[in-house]
Every structure is written in structure tokens, then in C-alpha cells.
């Protein structure tokens, strides 16, 4: 064991093995290695079947640091003889450890192993040291589950130990492995105890768990918020036509009503002033609808007073202020569902509650004009265009040509 076999000893054993003279064997061994060492220098590569390959390798220049002075210096490039053993020989040499496989391990296990190594060093320096961490760990022992890394290490060296062995080398290995297994077990135990001790002080695992829980909770809350936003968005999207249109509608209606009052009721002089801001908001609609409302066509405007009235009823306040509050609706109560319901009722009433009696006017459509504009001009409301379409038997109101003559019916509330 750990002996250095020199040339003569090797030759002696070879002579015994091959049944040749010691001198011849010595000569043979000497030649054998001489050829290798000479040829590898000359040819750069010597392959010996059953032993391996000797190779000359060129090492590049590299920079290094003098450990003592911290100075940088270059290690000049040089040549090096490398030896790669034959695959068969390699396997045979490694036979005692052949049972091992490379195993994938978790981070914790890796850390545990590295800590074990550290403990190895500590033990080497001060063998009393491991006794210290044992003390605080004792009471907590049963609480902690077996450490996964613990069985791993002792299990590994045990395997080859089970294999039948005869030679001294193998016996030595066996002893070593057995020793190592015991050591590993002890270390694992100590490790465990240490960990427990650490837990009491730092409770790192608890922290980990709470952290994990925290992140999970955060995730859940995030998901909940996202779904809520989605649902709200969906509801808004679905209700938008109703809400949006009704809001527009009520604004228009109130405007009309205010206008009518301007024309018919000379009593309320305050009204126009109050409506003014609303006018500014609905400027285009206002200017266009204002003309027919004030012009000889007072009639079509009048019937509108009735559908508009239900809007006033619940409030039962002076028309002027009502118009103002109504105008404020879209700003303040845009999202209120009750409001939307009321508004939609009014709009429905708008469209359904009239009958067509006679022709009010005939109108020739100009380029870019639609029935809604005509309805807006004559009735003061875009919503009433279907009456015109119905009265003129227009089947596809979206594709009207410029120059189409439409009859505008007189609308009377049912």
C-alpha cells in the first residue's frame, strides 16, 4: 500500500508473470518506457493499447499573480505531457466506485453537503467543536423531519462496501468506506441538529414559508383584481349603447324642451340664460335644431314636449333648472344603472309613442346627409329618424343617395 514500485521491482514481477529472465524483463520494461518518453517528445503522441495515450500539449501564455507580492506576471507558454488512460483500463481501475452514478440533487442538499465539508475541516482543526452544536439541538430533535441529504451521502459509500473484496487494496477501501459512511451518518445527524438549532434562532424555513405564502396571497389578490376589472369592463361594454345613447338623448330632449319653453313660454326669462352653458356643450346639435324649432315649424317641436315631459315629471321642477340638472347628468351620474334604466325608458317612449299624420315637409337629401340629420332638423331628435324611413318605405337607410327626396311626416303622440 502506497508503495513506490521501481523498475527492478516491476521487472521482477513481470518475470514471474511471463516466465522470462529478470534481466530480459528489466530490459523490456526499460525499453518500454524509454520509447514512450522519447517518442512523445519527438512525435507528440504515443498510443499504447491497453494502457492509454501519452500526448504533448502546448500550453498558452497566461497571466498570474504572485500570491505574496500581488504582482502580475506571465507564465510563459510551455509544453506538457498529458496522459489519458485507456477506457477499459480506466473502468477497471475505477471498479470499486463503479456502482456510483451522478445524481441530481436539490439546492438544499447541495448546501448541506457543502456544510458537511466545512464541518470536515472544522473537525480536522478542532475535534471538540462538533460537541458544541449538539447541546441546543437535543430537545428539538423529534420535531424535524429526516433530512433528504442525510441518507444520500452515507448510502453512496456503502454500496461498494457491500461488494465482495479480497485484495488488500479493496479491503482498505472497504474500511475507508465504512468509516466514511459512519462519519457521513454522524455528520448528517450533526448537520440535522445544527439545522434545528439554526431554526430556533433564525427560523429561516418559517420565513421561507411565510414569504412563499405572501407571494401566493399577492398573486391571488392580483388575479382577483384583474378578474374584477375584466368583469366591470365587460358590463360597461355591454351596457354602453344603452347608457351612452340615453345620456345623449336626455341631453337633447332637455335642450329641446328648453327651446320650446323659450319660444312658447315667455314667462320664464331665466331659462335661456340657464340653458346657455348646455348650448355651448351641444353646439352643433343646438344650432341646427334651434332653427326649425323657432321657425314656422313649431308643430313638430310641440309633440316633443310630451315625451319630454315624463323626464320632468319625477323631478317636477321648473323646466329651466331641470334642463340644467339633466345636462349635468352625463357628467355626474353617467355610471349609475338606475339612471340608465330611466333614460332608456324615455328613449323607447320617444320612438314608439308617435303616430304619423300627414306630410310636414319634403326634403331633398344633400351629399353626406342622413335621415338622422333630417330627423334632427325637423324634430330636434336624431332618435326619430325611423319614422321618416318608415313613412318613405326606405328599406336600407344606411345607403341613401344624394338627391333622394324624403317626405317628413308630422308626428303626433299616441
Amino acid at each position, binding site marked *: 500500500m502506497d*508503495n*513506490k514500485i521501481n523498475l527492478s521491482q516491476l521487472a521482477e514481477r513481470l518475470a514471474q508473470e511471463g516466465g522470462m529472465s529478470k534481466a530480459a524483463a528489466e530490459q523490456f520494461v526499460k*525499453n518500454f518506457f524509454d520509447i514512450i518518453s522519447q517518442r512523445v517528445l519527438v512525435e507528440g503522441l504515443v498510443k*499504447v493499447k491497453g494502457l492509454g495515450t501519452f500526448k504533448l500539449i502546448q500550453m498558452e501564455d497566461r497571466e498570474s499573480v504572485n500570491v505574496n507580492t500581488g504582482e502580475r506576471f506571465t507564465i510563459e507558454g510551455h509544453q506538457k505531457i498529458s496522459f489519458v488512460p485507456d477506457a477499459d483500463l480506466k473502468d477497471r481501475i475505477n471498479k470499486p466506485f463503479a456502482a456510483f452514478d451522478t445524481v441530481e440533487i436539490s439546492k438544499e442538499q447541495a448546501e448541506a*453537503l457543502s456544510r458537511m465539508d466545512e464541518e470536515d475541516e472544522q473537525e480536522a482543526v478542532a475535534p471538540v467543536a462538533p460537541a458544541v452544536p449538539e447541546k441546543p439541538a437535543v430537545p428539538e430533535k423529534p420535531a424535524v423531519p429526516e433530512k433528504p441529504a442525510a441518507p444520500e451521502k452515507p448510502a453512496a459509500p456503502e454500496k461498494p462496501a457491500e461488494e465482495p473484496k479480497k485484495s488488500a487494496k479493496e479491503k482498505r477501501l472497504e474500511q475507508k468506506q465504512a468509516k466514511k459512511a459512519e462519519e457521513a451518518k454522524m455528520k448528517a445527524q450533526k448537520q440535522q441538529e445544527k439545522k434545528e438549532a439554526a431554526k430556533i434562532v433564525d427560523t429561516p424555513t418559517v420565513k421561507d414559508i411565510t414569504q412563499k405564502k405572501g407571494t401566493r396571497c399577492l398573486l391571488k389578490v392580483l388575479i382577483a383584481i384583474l378578474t374584477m376589472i375584466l368583469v366591470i369592463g365587460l358590463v360597461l361594454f355591454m351596457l354602453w349603447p344603452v347608457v351612452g345613447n340615453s345620456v345623449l338623448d336626455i341631453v337633447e330632449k332637455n335642450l329641446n324642451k328648453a327651446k320650446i319653453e323659450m319660444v312658447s313660454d315667455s314667462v320664464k326669462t331665466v331659462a335661456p340664460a340657464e340653458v346657455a352653458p348646455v348650448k355651448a356643450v351641444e353646439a352643433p346639435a343646438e344650432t341646427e335644431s334651434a332653427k326649425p324649432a323657432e321657425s314656422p315649424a313649431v308643430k313638430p317641436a310641440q309633440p316633443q314636449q310630451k315625451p319630454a315631459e315624463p323626464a320632468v315629471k319625477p323631478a317636477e321642477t321648473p323646466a329651466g333648472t331641470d334642463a340644467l340638472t339633466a345636462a349635468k347628468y352625463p357628467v355626474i351620474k353617467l355610471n349609475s344603472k338606475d339612471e340608465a334604466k330611466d333614460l332608456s325608458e324615455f328613449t323607447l317612449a320617444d320612438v314608439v309613442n308617435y303616430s304619423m299624420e300627414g306630410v310636414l315637409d319634403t326634403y331633398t337629401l344633400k351629399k353626406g346627409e342622413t335621415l338622422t340629420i333630417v330627423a334632427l332638423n325637423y324634430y330636434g331628435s336624431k332618435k326619430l329618424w325611423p319614422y321618416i324611413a318608415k313613412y318613405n318605405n326606405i328599406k336600407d337607410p344606411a345607403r341613401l343617395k344624394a338627391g333622394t327626396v324624403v317626405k317628413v311626416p308630422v308626428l303626433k303622440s299616441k
Partner: protein
Amino acid sequence: MNNKQFLNELSDKCQIGAEQAATQVEQLIGVMEKIWQDGDSVSLSGFGVLEVKKKNERVSVNPTTGVRMLVPPKLVLTYKPSSLLKEKLK
């Protein structure tokens, strides 16, 4: 230099037949293997030392995937050239 060339040169030098050289090489390697298995090393002046070394188990980490692997311990045949041979390299 491959095995055949090596055997030829060896048989020339020892003045033995190529076949005998081959068998003797096999025997020599067999003897050395036993030496190594006993935990001994072959040390030859002017050539170097051939010995078996135990490499401890270690944890290797794949830098791209971060997967940790426990590499088992192993016995490896190593060669250390003699200082005489190293001198010749320069």
C-alpha cells in the same frame, strides 16, 4: 505514434518478435494494474510516476440550467512526468 509502430520499435530494441512484444506488453500492463489495485504506484526514473488517485465526490452545477449534480468519487490513473523528462521539454 500508434500502437503498431510502438510495438515494432519495442520489438526491434529488445530483439524479440512483434508477437512476443505484444504479449509482453499485455503482461506488463497486467502487472502494473495489479500494482495499482493494491494502491501502489509505478515510479520509473527518467519517465515519471503512474499512480491511481482518488477524486472526492463533488457537487457540480450546470451553469446554464443551474442543475446541481452530485458527482460520485472515483479512482483515476494519473501520470506525472519526471523532472528529467520535463527538462527535456524545454
